[in-house]
């Protein structure tokens, strides 16, 4: 638990990117950026920044996004780039 919190807080450092599958999962669910943003409670630009990997979310936001997309956090976010088959 402590390790995962540490990893997430480390990932907010711009030098260590966090990879995510938000765009793939969102489009498969037929959600627009605005709709996901409203469900999660952030601005739609923030979803764009997250999808492009230009912003690493806090632990709370990562959990909220995973919950909204009905996935485990590890299915949405990872510290290593997802393989083609995972996309």
């Amino acid at each position, binding site marked *: 638990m402590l390790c995962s919190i540490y990893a997430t807080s480390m990932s907010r450092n711009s030098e260590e990117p966090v990879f995510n599958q938000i765009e793939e999962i969102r489009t498969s669910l037929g959600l627009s950026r605005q709709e996901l943003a409203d469900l999660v409670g952030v*601005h739609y*630009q*923030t979803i764009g920044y997250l999808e492009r990997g230009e912003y690493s979310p806090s632990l*709370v936001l990562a959990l909220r996004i995973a919950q909204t997309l009905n996935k485990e956090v590890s299915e949405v976010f990872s510290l290593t780039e997802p393989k083609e088959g995972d996309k």
Partner: protein
Amino acid sequence: MTKKNKIYWSLGVTEKGTRALLTDENSKFKWLRSQRNRRLLVVLNVLGIALVSLGSYYPTLKTNINLGTDTEIVIFSVTAIFVIFLTLGAYSYLRVAVRGIADAPDELLDERQIQIRNTSYRYAYLAMGYIVLGLLLLMFFGPELEMFQPEGNDGSYLAIATMFAFAAAPSMILAWRERDI
């Protein structure tokens, strides 16, 4: 029953006003939000602030204008007021261009917006620190600019420019740095 519009006195904004700016997607001001136009607004703001601050020195610079007559004083004052309102206009557009994020309270922003706002304040603090240091060095070691003289130059334009700079600096930094806003 309509919800009461909360006023954030320390920030000088209202809840409704801030929300309107933050969610303003389809207004006539959308064109302001491209990075190119935002940067153009920053340049306009910097020019405006520089011009306003020059108002404190213009009468004492080595020019042929010495504000000796009433007409000259009127022309100078009217021009100065015009420049001040122009700068105020540029600042208002800048605030719209950055969705008022720089002046918004935490509870109306998401975590990324809070982060970029805080970063912009950090840079603004550093920038203003260097500007104030520069002015102090100019006062103590610079050429005789006859700063803050009771006649012609009481430093009032410099004070107005400083207020503009303090108010606009975080928005200017936000407007310049962010790709999308």
